[in-house]
């Protein structure tokens, strides 16, 4: 309770100082979140590239209308956070045609945009973009859960299919543990190792499960091997307070310190002070994997979205408790399917996040859903045979991507028809016999959808050396997120 109160006071102080600083030089903290492999790094790189180098953004009015004079990178405000390596990420995409490596630690970048307001005044807008591993996001719900609740929830989840297959060895080990026995460091270490292995298996491409807290187990950073990361859920007896010195008490204490050392600072420093939020979701990977992954994604999305402070911006909230007044849900990698299916993809994402969306709308925030591709890597084509037509996308699959009878080498260009998405998103969430089949439960031969990951596009250099990146609806996302700040 006291913790909570101190937190609130800290946040309020920070908000008040921010308010004072930003009164004359407006700053937007744009939160870019998303589970891992959703494409956060690519999104941020493309966004900054587009702003700084002047991308092709017809829907982003301030840029298309010529009101943005220039945008440049500026030193970031937080000295303790590493800089977002924008230049190298772009170089990797343009020169080597590789996607940037996935985020391992938090990083940020500040862009200053000089523009002319509609009434003709010269203004400056500072945009802070923060990138961090998507796994960390899943820790936010832990802030409201005790060790006991978390342990029982995690266990219950791990006993459902298809997780139960992956958790077999961990479950075997768990059965040997007695929570009431005296705590032993070696036991804790082994338990944590089995637990981490189970989490890692869930994340595999074929399963693509999303809900895997605590996030630092998969992405430990500088906290690897610390006691705060050496705990695991136990099969707990109900209604007994943990005896002092027991394994249970030890795990519980470590869980608490995990929350104190990892989750709360992350929430306070980076999450609680956001103005605008975009949540990137790799819906297609979940559809690839199957209905279980989709259900998991639905659950994870709603968990994550409840962590946001949303609502209409008021003077009071601006002073004491910053709120997010616009949330954009983006189904990324929209270039993996033909544009005629984009609306369906949006509907699916809208359906997945339904609960969170209606909650945010009631609170007064604006929510939009968009199918987006920050860097478009395919072009479109139609495969015809006689009167049959399949709307395809043409691209170069990443090395190792496979369809039946073919594992791609990363050079061959192929046309892909990924399967028809349903008009009604509920058809994807049907259970049992009617459910579609994904890689988690069936072979490549029988899957209903196959979205292949493709390499970045081959780009031609322009006269100033850096090409503009092709995209799908990145400008629409920008217009929704920050367009109204350029008045």
């Amino acid at each position, binding site marked *: 309770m006291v913790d909570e109160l101190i937190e609130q006071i800290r946040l309020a102080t920070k908000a008040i100082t921010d308010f004072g600083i930003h009164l004359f030089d407006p700053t937007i903290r744009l939160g870019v979140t998303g589970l891992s492999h959703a494409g956060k790094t690519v999104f941020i790189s493309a966004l900054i590239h587009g702003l700084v180098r002047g991308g*092709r953004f*017809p*829907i982003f*009015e301030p840029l*298309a*209308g010529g009101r943005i004079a220039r945008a440049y990178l500026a030193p970031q405000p937080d000295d303790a956070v590493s800089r977002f390596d924008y230049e190298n990420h772009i170089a990797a995409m343009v020169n080597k045609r590789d996607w940037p490596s996935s985020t391992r630690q938090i990083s940020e970048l500040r862009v200053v945009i000089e523009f002319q307001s509609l009434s003709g005044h010269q203004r400056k807008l500072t945009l802070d973009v923060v990138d961090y591993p998507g796994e960390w996001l899943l820790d936010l719900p832990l802030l409201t859960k005790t060790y006991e609740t978390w342990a029982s929830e995690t266990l219950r989840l791990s006993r459902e299919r298809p997780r139960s297959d992956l958790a077999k060895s961990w479950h075997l080990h768990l059965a040997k543990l007695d929570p009431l026995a005296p705590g032993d460091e070696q036991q804790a270490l082994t338990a944590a190792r089995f637990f981490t292995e189970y989490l890692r298996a869930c994340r595999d491409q074929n399963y693509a499960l999303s809900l895997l807290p605590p996030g630092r187990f998969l992405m430990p950073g500088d906290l690897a091997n610390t006691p705060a990361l050496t705990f695991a859920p136990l099969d707990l007896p109900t209604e007994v307070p943990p005896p002092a010195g027991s394994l249970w008490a030890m795990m519980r204490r470590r869980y608490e310190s995990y929350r104190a050392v990892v989750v709360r600072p992350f929430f306070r420093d980076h999450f609680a002070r956001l103005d605008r939020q975009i949540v990137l979701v790799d819906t297609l990977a979940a559809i690839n994997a199957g209905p279980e992954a989709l259900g998991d994604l639905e659950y994870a999305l709603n968990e994550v979205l409840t962590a946001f402070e949303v609502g209409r911006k008021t003077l009071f909230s601006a002073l004491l408790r910053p709120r997010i007044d616009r949330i954009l849900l983006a189904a990324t990698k929209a270039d993996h399917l033909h*544009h005629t299916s*984009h609306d369906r993809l949006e509907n699916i994402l809208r359906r997945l996040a339904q609960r969170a969306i209606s909650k945010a709308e009631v609170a007064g925030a604006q929510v939009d859903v968009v199918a987006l591709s920050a860097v478009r890597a395919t*072009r*479109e*084509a*139609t*495969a*015809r*045979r*006689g009167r*049959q037509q*399949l709307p*395809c996308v*043409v691209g170069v699959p990443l090395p190792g991507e496979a*369809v*039946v*009878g*073919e594992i791609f080498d990363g050079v*061959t*260009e*192929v*046309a*892909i*028809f*990924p*399967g*028809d998405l*349903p*008009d*009604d998103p509920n*058809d994807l969430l*049907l259970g049992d*016999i*009617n459910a*579609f*089949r994904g890689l988690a439960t069936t072979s*490549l*031969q*029988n*899957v*209903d*959808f*196959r979205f*292949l990951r493709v390499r970045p596009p081959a780009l031609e250099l322009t006269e100033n050396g850096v090409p503009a990146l092709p995209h*799908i*609806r990145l400008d*629409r996302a920008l217009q929704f997120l920050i367009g109204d700040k350029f008045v």
Partner: protein
Amino acid sequence: MNKAYVSKTYMNTWQHRAPAAFRLDRDGAMVRLNTETGGASGQALQLQAEPDFDAEIVMLRDLPRSSRRRVRWGALFLSALGGLVLLAAGMAVSSLIADLFQYNRGLGWLGLALAGLAALSLMAVAIRETMGLLRLATVEKLRDRAATMIVSDDRVEARALVHQFLHLTRRMPHLARSRANLQSHLAEIIDGADLVRLAERELMTSLDQQARTIIATAATRVSVVTALSPRAVIDVLYVLASALALLRQLAFLYGVRPGTVGLVRLARLVVVHLGITGGLASSDSLIQQLLGHGIAAKLSARLGEGVLNGLVTARFGLAALDVIRPMPFAALSRPTLRDIMNELLRSLGDRADDQQCSPQSDADHDESPLIAVP
């Protein structure tokens, strides 16, 4: 749909085609990579590139219109009467030509030629007027459709609509660059509502700016003339004439080009529109106008009258803008009376300054040869 394309268990929920992948052969033929062996149906696979999905322009469907099946007696009467008058005129002309032939053969031919010329030019005028009316109707329809499109967000129809806007503005040379921009954006994946807004921003921005200037200029002229004119009749006539001129100018600006009949119809529409909105945009408060007028009137009764007349003209111009502009105001903001009035008052002030200061300041401005003070 071929059976091979439909997956087996899944089809009870919806028509679903199983995923497929194809590779381009060296000679351009397609090879199906997964599922059953390709070429089962004996036909070659082709891959057709879609550089842009702009190729097929879908014609717009007509929206259902509420049709009132009512006999319009008044119109019928007028048409019948018009027909009679035409017949009478025809009779008169033919008998005149017959008379002319009796009088003198040469005069007869001359009369015939003149009659033919008159008929021809009448036809040309009729065609022009009809075209003008049609254009007016098109613009109305386009605006309705654009408003619908912004709600429905239909990608295919919005694309067709933007093509029509490009067609409408094809004769405006200073929009060439905007049109080229828009054309190039059509090849990208942009949603319906966004596309309509984009088209509005590209095509209407400079036109709106010009329209604002035109309205402000007309309002200023009316203010000055009525402030100086000796008789009220002249005021009224001048206000009416300049309103018509303003309407015509605006219509030409937005590519409507109505004929005379079209202009009359347009004027009627504008007056109706003024009646509906009360001539008052929501952003303009009555109090502010009263105040503004009051202060001007305090300074000078004539000036106050002039400003009031200017205000009326500006209102008329804004209402005309709503009727003539082929797109609804979605991405751009509607010019308000306040914008126009500010411009009007400023230019009035400038004129007053000019009149007062020109003798004194002439020494400083000797590079201006236009003001030659003896």
